[in-house]
Every structure is written in structure tokens, then in C-alpha cells.
């Protein structure tokens, strides 16, 4: 590849500067601040703070509530990731077989992507409203007394449902383009080699989609862990109480509601480490990403 060079040293730095400043101000500085705060105990009334070492972390490690939320977050992440990927894959395979009107379907499915998480949460709220939400009524008609915001399991189900609904379009688009990049002749060769469409899918299509699938797996885990904040926030209506919540939401609840800046910072640091690990994993994956041709 040809590399274009700059004639001066400072020009590229100058061009990068705005981005670097943004990263520094909105990422490194708060991150450093969080790390620092996580070692202090802040007075809830704002009268200074005292150094407590790893106390905030040991508290978290011993907290049964934190363990419970961590477990819930894990389950939530698994469910959201699994259903988002599975549904999107089914839809993509179906859409891939459609020749007429394929574009319309794709656009309709993509629409959901443009909906911001809190708005998605709000739509979920409307649909699942205990007294008049159509989905809640549907649940009632099959004998499920759906109580959003009251029953823990029901609220959790709503969180999963809305989060999945919001993520399916992204996965769908990736899967569809993955499917369409499989050479037509390879599929035709499979058509001659295997009669069963089930076998063709598992032996040929699915392995060729695997790189896309791995990539999406990481994206979806990250999404379920962090980007569902808006959905969670709207669905629990700021009343954490007995309601399910994810680790990210707990950071917010403890820090901004409970004014426990130290504990909240320690939680953020733990999440930061998690993101870091995921990111490294993803980069490794992309490096090794199987290039078949």
C-alpha cells in the first residue's frame, strides 16, 4: 500500500489534536478521576473525603447485593446476547431468501436501530403497561399476570425483551451482509452436494458466517452490559427498589442517588477493567479473524 507522508511533523499532530483533546477530557480525565475516587470515602454531605485504600473494593467483594446484581447482569447479558443474535440470524436467513421486496424489509427492520435506548424503553413501557399495555394484555390472555415494575421477573423479562428488540436490527444487517458475501457458486455447490437445507446451513453457511458471528458476539456483550442503561432506566422508572438492574445502572444509583462516590467509582473501575478485557479479546479475535479466501 502506498503511504502518503506529511511534509511537516506538527501538521498531523495539529489535525489529531481536537480528537485527542476530546478523548483526554471526556475519557482519560474522568477515568483517572474515577480510579482516584475509588480509593476515597466521600462524605455524603460533601464535607471532604478521606483515603480508605482498597476498602471500597473489599466492601463490594463482600456485598451480597453486589453479587446478586452481578449475577443478574451476567444472566441478562447472556439472554440479551443469545436472543439478539439468534433472532437476527433467523431473520437474516429468511430475508436472504427473499428476492422481491428485500430492500423494503431491510429498511423496515433497520428502523428500530434509529430508536434511542430511552425511547425504546419508553415504547416498552407503553406496550407493557400493567393496566393498558397491549403486550401486558396479551400476557394476561395467556394467563401471565404481567406486572411491570412490581414483579422482579416480569420487569427483568421486559428489560430483556426491549433490549433484544433494540439490538436485533444491527445484528440483522451484519448477518445479512455476511450471508450475501458467501459466493453464490459455493451455495450452489452445496445445493448439489446436500439435499437437506438444514445440513447446508450448518455445514456451509454457518461456518462461513462464523467470523461475523464472533465479531457480533463481542459487540452484543458490550451492548448488553453497557448500552442498555437507557432501557433499564426507563423500565425501572428510577425506582430501583426490588427491581432488577445491571451493574452499570448500579454505578449510577449508588453514585448519584446514594451519593456513595467512592463505592460507585470502585464499581466503574471494575467495569472499565471488564471493557478493557473485552476489547483486548475482540482485537485478538479480529487479528486472527479467519480470512478464508
Amino acid at each position, binding site marked *: 500500500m502506498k503511504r502518503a507522508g506529511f511534509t511537516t511533523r506538527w501538521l498531523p499532530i495539529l489535525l489529531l489534536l481536537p480528537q485527542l483533546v476530546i478523548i483526554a477530557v471526556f475519557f482519560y480525565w474522568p477515568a483517572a478521576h474515577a480510579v482516584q475516587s475509588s480509593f476515597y470515602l466521600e462524605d455524603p454531605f460533601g464535607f471532604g473525603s478521606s483515603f480508605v485504600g482498597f476498602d471500597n473494593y473489599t466492601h463490594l467483594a463482600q456485598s451480597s447485593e453486589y453479587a446478586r446484581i452481578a449475577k443478574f447482569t451476567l444472566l441478562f447479558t447472556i439472554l440479551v446476547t443469545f436472543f439478539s443474535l439468534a433472532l437476527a440470524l433467523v431473520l437474516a436467513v429468511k430475508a436472504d431468501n427473499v428476492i422481491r421486496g428485500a430492500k423494503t424489509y431491510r429498511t423496515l427492520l433497520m428502523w428500530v436501530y434509529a430508536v434511542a435506548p430511552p425511547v425504546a424503553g419508553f415504547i416498552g413501557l407503553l406496550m407493557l403497561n400493567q393496566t393498558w399495555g397491549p403486550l401486558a394484555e396479551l400476557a394476561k390472555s395467556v394467563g401471565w399476570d404481567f406486572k411491570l415494575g412490581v414483579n422482579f421477573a416480569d420487569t427483568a423479562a421486559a428489560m430483556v425483551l426491549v433490549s433484544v428488540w433494540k439490538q436485533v436490527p444491527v445484528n440483522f444487517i451484519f448477518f445479512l451482509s455476511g450471508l450475501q458475501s458467501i459466493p453464490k*457458486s*459455493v451455495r*450452489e455447490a452445496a445445493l*448439489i452436494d446436500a*439435499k*437437506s437445507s438444514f*445440513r447446508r446451513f450448518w455445514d456451509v453457511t454457518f*461456518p462461513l458466517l*462464523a467470523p461475523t458471528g464472533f465479531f457480533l458476539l463481542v459487540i452484543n456483550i458490550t451492548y448488553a452490559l453497557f448500552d442498555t442503561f437507557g432501557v433499564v432506566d426507563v423500565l425501572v422508572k428510577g425506582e430501583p427498589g426490588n427491581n432488577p438492574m445491571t451493574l452499570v445502572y448500579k454505578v449510577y444509583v449508588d453514585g448519584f442517588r446514594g451519593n456513595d462516590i467512592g463505592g460507585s467509582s470502585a464499581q466503574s473501575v471494575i467495569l472499565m477493567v471488564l471493557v478493557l478485557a473485552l476489547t483486548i479479546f475482540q482485537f485478538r479475535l479480529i487479528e486472527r479473524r479467519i480470512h478464508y*479466501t
Partner: protein
Amino acid sequence: MAQVSLNKIRKVYPNGFEAVKPISFDITDGEFVVLVGPSGCGKSTLLRMVAGLEDISEGALSIGDRNVNHVDPADRDIAMVFQNYALYPHMTVRKNIGYGLKNRKIAAHDIEAKVQAAAKMLNLTDYLDRKPSQLSGGQRQRVAMGRAVVRDPALFLFDEPLSNLDAKLRHQMRIEIKALQRRLGVTSIYVTHDQVEAMTMADRIIVLNNGQIEQIGTPAEIYHRPASTFVASFMGAPPMNLIAAQGHDGRIMVGDMALASNNIIGPVTMGIRPEDVEIGPDCEIPFTVDIVEELGAHRLLHGQVDGQDFTIHVAKDVALSAGPIRMTIKPEAMILFDAQTGLAL
């Protein structure tokens, strides 16, 4: 192994384009038929209909004694070799070759034995554990062949299997495929737009043009007795000379020269292969050489007869340069075509 019969097979694509006009022909058991024609004439479409990859709009197709119009590709007992090989990129050579057998419920040790035998036949034994991306173009081509051979099908279908190879490899594979087909005796349909491949490999050639059959015949028939000016100019390199002439008084006149004798009256197109022309000082027809094309084994003289382009094939020891010479044509080699329809008279 089987005979194949196409009865008024037609293809209209969903957009209304008629890619194949009703076509009928039969292929006998073990025969090697080559479909040849210019790009876009419907060769692949026809082959893909036989494979079951494309719906047949009208007509009946049978392989063996079975009508297969509505039979799945996997159940037609065919194997196909694609132009870009269409190997499964994530499978090793061994799995690529064995995949079709695996899906036909053949025992694992039988598959292995068959794969080994096919690999041996195609010199692929050392590459069985490689992925297609680790192979050269020629080796991939062999794997594609192996995938077809191992199945021992009733019918082989080839869609320009050699067009992605360089000239030397193509020549070698041409001979190998033909020898393999002879040995296995599997009925084959081979699509190509390369008329040399068609001539050298075919038992019978089918020349297609615009979704229609122009001519069916042995390579010799197609070459020496083309049914139309289209076939005459498509087959052969250089192609047959075609010049506008007039039948008059029992002679074929080009300008004011009588080139041959024939009782036809009126305008005709006269066809003569470049090698069916003799040159010499005593010959009756004047010819102006513009360019001498040196081909090593022989030479081609490009020039004009009465202002019309004409090519003469001469032996390598005929030393000539541009300028006027004299020639004569072998009357028995001359073919006359209708000036309007282009069909042989």
C-alpha cells in the same frame, strides 16, 4: 452413466428475458458434449437448468430414463465443476471432496477410500489436509474435479472449468479432463466459449447463439461443414473467410473474377478456410498481402481479395513479404451460404 434428453427446453428469466429459446437434443450414454457460443448466448443458463440450479420455464428434461424437471439438484445424480471452482473455503481438501458422499449416507471408511482414490488419480494426495486458500489455481481446479469424480455420477456438468487457468495449464488440464472422462465413461456436458477447447474435447459440439442452436455436429463437421456463417466465423482461429459473391452463368464471381464454378444464381456468401487456399505464380486469383503473421509452425497472410478481407494459411517454409501474389481455392472445400439468412446452401 446415462443418456440425457432435452425436449423443447426454454428459459425465460423473471424479468421477461428469454435466455434459452426452445431447445431439443439428446446425449448418448458416455458422450462428451461441448456447448460453445459467444458470451451471453445462454450456455450457462442451459447447463444450470440441467443441474437444477435454475428452473426450467418450459420443456422436459430427462437424465437416464427419469424426468427430472422437478427433482432437487442433489437428487439428479449429477456433479458440477464451476468456473471459480466453488470449493468450501472452510473445509480441507479431504472434506471438500468427501462432502457430497457424506450427505449420501456412505460409510466413513468408504468415503475415505474413495477420496484417497480420487486424490491419487488427480495428484492431490499430498494436499488432502490443506484448505483451498493454501492451494494454487491449478490445484483448486483439481479439487473441484475430485469433488465431481468421487461421486461417480450419471452426468458431469462443467461450466468453463478452465477459464481461470493460464494457457499452459489449461492445455494440460484439457487433456487430463478428456482422458479422465474417457476412462470413467461418464456422460458430460461441457460449457466453454473457447472454440479450441470445444474442438479438442468434444465428441459432439453444440454451437449456441442468442439462446438457439446454430448447429450440432462432430468437431470435424462443425469445422468443415458449418451450417451458418455464424458457425463459420465462430469456430476456427483464424475463422473461415467469408466473402460476398455473385452466382452468375455457372460461376461464382467476386468482382469480375470467377473464383469457382457453381450453378447458383444471385448473391451468396462464399466461405473458405484459410488452409484450403493454395498460392503459386500460375494461380488465377490475384491477392494482395498486407501483413504476414508469423506463428512459428505456420504463417498467416492477411490481405484482400477484391477489397474484402481474406486470410491465407501457408506452411512455415513459404517465405513471403507484403505485396501482390496469386492464389487459388480448393473447390471441394468451398461452402456457399445464403447472403440474406447466412445459412449454408
